[in-house]
């Protein structure tokens, strides 16, 4: 691949082989050329040029100085509007900068734009956005493919080489699945590693910021930049952040990988089973012990997720009521009408569906049967992993049950769409770190992803396994 990596680019900038301006103008050019992919909700060349100017005047040393980064439009940013891909936040301009994006700004990165996503991160194809579909850059001419979702814009931005890295958020697979669909690396760290402050909430107990990049090394550099404790987020973890990149070690000799039998699901395409086997073979050759493990509650993960996430969402999205900011319907004769019309007109179908599901599972008489039970199952699922990790250092599974599918294929079948998350959701429920790396292709030459899961806050092990697999694949 000819795309230059973040690591290489930092070297080139350092040795003055290329200037910040030259570098970014190259990306600006491609962004304009790839306009048809609808990767960005907000892109302003002027804004990018201004950032370049400012950085050129800045003599201080910064770790990511001049590096073009794309930001999922769920992160609140001061210099660009933030929409969460929803009409209800159309033209919303935050007066504050999210924790994650502030860290990237502090390190001198350049924000090339705000990327498209499923509305409020609810979806698996970036097709529920108020601002239209994003097209997977790997699409063949006549069949536009979905980039996955919800962070499809960010995955596509990296895949189309419109930036050197991108932020995403992952609630049930929203980083890992689009990474797999677009053939890029995507990491969702441990819940609590990156502050959620300033990220429009979907499901608070699951939402976690993460990174898309061209390769594992780049991901390790970028994740370190956005991780860290934040007292403004009560669920943010007080842990030391190691230098993932410096500590990268592809020698896995003596490690144990867990292969969960419950991830062999009927109907999984051969090609997916094949790359999984290939990955295991590679690890075997590297001296990794292969351990068959069981995560017995895996089959309950998806239904559990689709109770907990909508429940939290139904409450998190109550603040979008037309009273304080964002869209307000014109047709108002009473307070109730203001709510009804604002929310009916401001939210799309999928968001409304999840608000309804969430409202239902929390309502009197149903709470115990749905929400409370789901919380209990969630605990069982998390315990499965804790047990499994007593026997292995990391777990390897496929990332998604298919390669990228045609854009409109699952549009009208929410259940089919939800099945996309089958391999990613369990780790989300357990709050574990997970990475997806490209590992093989299907018969149409579309990339397939392998997922590596680690123990809580053991991102280093996840990166080490990923870089090892990546290097052997290349």
């Amino acid at each position, binding site marked *: 691949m000819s795309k230059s990596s973040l690591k290489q680019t930092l070297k080139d900038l350092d040795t003055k082989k290329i200037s910040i301006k030259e570098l970014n103008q190259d990306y600006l050019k491609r962004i304009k050329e790839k306009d048809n992919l609808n990767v960005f909700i907000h892109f302003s060349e002027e804004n990018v040029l201004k950032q370049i100017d400012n950085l050129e005047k800045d003599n201080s040393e910064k770790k990511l100085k001049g590096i073009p980064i794309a930001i999922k439009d769920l992160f609140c940013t001061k210099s660009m509007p933030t929409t969460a891909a929803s009409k209800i936040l159309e033209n919303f301009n935050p007066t504050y900068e999210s924790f994650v994006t502030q860290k990237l700004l502090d390190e001198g990165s350049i924000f090339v734009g705000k990327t498209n996503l499923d509305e409020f991160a609810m979806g698996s194809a970036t097709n529920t956005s108020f601002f239209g579909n994003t097209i997977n850059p790997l699409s063949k001419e006549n069949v536009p493919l979905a980039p996955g979702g919800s962070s499809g814009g960010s995955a596509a931005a990296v895949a189309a080489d419109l930036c050197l890295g991108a932020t995403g958020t992952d609630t049930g697979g929203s980083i890992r699945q689009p990474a797999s669909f677009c053939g890029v690396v995507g990491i969702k760290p441990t819940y609590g590693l990156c502050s959620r402050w300033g990220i429009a*909430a979907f499901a608070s107990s699951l939402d976690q910021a993460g990174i898309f990049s061209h390769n594992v090394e780049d991901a390790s550099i970028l994740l370190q930049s956005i991780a860290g404790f934040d007292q403004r*987020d009560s*669920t943010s973890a007080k842990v030391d952040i190691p230098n993932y990149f410096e500590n990268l070690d592809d020698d896995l000799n003596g490690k144990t990988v867990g292969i969960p039998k419950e991830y062999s699901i009927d109907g999984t395409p051969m090609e997916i089973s094949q790359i999984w086997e290939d990955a295991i073979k590679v690890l075997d050759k590297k001296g990794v012990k292969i351990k068959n493990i069981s995560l017995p509650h895996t089959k309950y993960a998806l239904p559990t997720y689709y109770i907990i996430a909508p429940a939290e969402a*139904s409450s998190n999205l109550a603040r979008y009521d037309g009273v*304080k900011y964002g869209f307000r319907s014109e047709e108002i004769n009473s307070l109730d009408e203001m709510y009804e019309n604002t929310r009916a007109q401001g939210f799309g179908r999928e968001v409304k569906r999840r608000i309804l599901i969430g409202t239902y599972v*929390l309502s*009197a008489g149903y709470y115990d049967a749905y929400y409370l039970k789901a919380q209990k199952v969630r605990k069982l699922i998390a315990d499965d992993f804790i047990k499994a990790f007593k026997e292995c250092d990391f777990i390897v599974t496929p990332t998604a049950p298919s390669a990228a599918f045609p854009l409109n294929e699952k549009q009208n079948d929410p259940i089919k769409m939800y099945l996309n998350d089958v391999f990613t959701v369990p780790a989300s429920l357990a709050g574990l770190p997970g990475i997806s790396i490209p590992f093989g292709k299907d018969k149409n030459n579309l990339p397939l992803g392998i997922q590596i899961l680690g123990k809580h806050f053991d991102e280093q092990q996840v990166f080490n396994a990923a870089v090892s697999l990546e290097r052997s694949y290349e």
Partner: protein
Amino acid sequence: MNNLIKGEKHDWEMVIGLEIHAQVKSNSKLFSSSSTKFGSSPNSQVSLVDAAMPGMLPVINKYCVEQAIKTGVGLKAKINNYSVFDRKNYFYADLPQGYQISQYKYPIVGEGKVTIDFKDGTSKDIRIVRLHLEQDAGKSLHDQNPSKTYVDLNRSGVALMEIVSEPDIRTPDEAGMYISKIRSILMYLDTCDGNMQEGSLRADVNISVRKPGDEYGTRCEIKNLNSIKFIKQAINYEAKRQIEILESGGSIEQNTMLFNTSTGKTSPMRNKEEAHDYRYFPDPDLLPLEISNEEIGKIKSSIPELPDELKNKFIETYKLSNYDASVLTAEKQTSDYFNETINSDPELKNHAKIVVNWITSELFSLLNKNNQDLNNSPVSPENLGQLIKLISTNEISGKIAKDVLEDMFSSGKTARQIVDEKGLQQVTDQGEIAKVIDEVIAENPKMVEQYLAGKDKLLGFFVGQAMKATKGKANPKMLNDILKQKLNKKN
């Protein structure tokens, strides 16, 4: 005590429980650093969190938690080591998040009790079910514009303690005494400023009626009452309303009621079917509150003397009655004032009852008349002590002392100054008093005749005349004795 009320057909008993909302005394809000100052211009104390901007997260204010624990200790309640913040979901324009963060299943404080004291010396325990922390909502302003409602979010997110009682209250007076007692405890603890006018303390009243001995009847809840007077009025009206319905063969609907302060009537706000389904669930943005016994112990040891302990101390040290002691300790400022007064002179300890009377009747009535508060009383405890000392040593009479107090109140002078300037020292010179009496007897020969003929009541007349002649300064006992002596000698 008979607590029953008479209906047309039966006697009825009220069953009352209170939910008190007390604003936590703290500089900043429960989950944000915005100021809680009262009366600032609208929306001047609103953080991004208070306005529920996208991506904003609540962070618990530890001081508010300590205040709640303190209050729990003051209510003799169990402090829970583990409690959880839940979201109470409903839409309203002044509720920016679309939910209120409250505590539902696991409150920070569990069961406790509060004792109320009656005039007759008896007392009664009202059981507390729980105390939990929650956010206040903002304020909707409906009267600023004919077609619009404005919203002020200054109050949005301010910490409240909801204190829920068992339905142990049986009369409006008990309800009043209960809320006064709670207010008193909170103010002693300095966990709430107790200002009912500014809404720092409000109550929802649950009330039902029943025939004595029957099961509880269906209750109605009267929302948001912010004075003891209104609480009593609302209870009285609502009980009568329920009794009338029941006696005419109807049944009570479980309604939420509003109290109209100008008509004194309650009216339904919503019925059971219209009741909200709040869809409570644990707030995923907040971790459960875990409080160690060590922390609780630390807070316990920092707690000042509370009214009940102080009351017992007063009864023991100064031999006061239960009622006097409970009046003195009802408000911290009163007990502080009493303490300072009685400690201003060692002599006064032997005259505690007089000190109580001068504070709770004479000084209070002057303060009331002038719309002033004990906190900024023009008469300092030392000066009141001096006045009482003058009475106890017979330097001035009680009657004159009242005038002196009024003078002290308006001029700010000390009792000594006034007594000296005006020459109000009691006349205790036997010869001087006898001389005045001789004059009075000489001037009223007819009266003397009538008195001697058996009209004993006329003694008062002579006392009055003699007092008048001494400008009230004669020692009353001496005057009485000498007068009787002299009149009887005439016989």
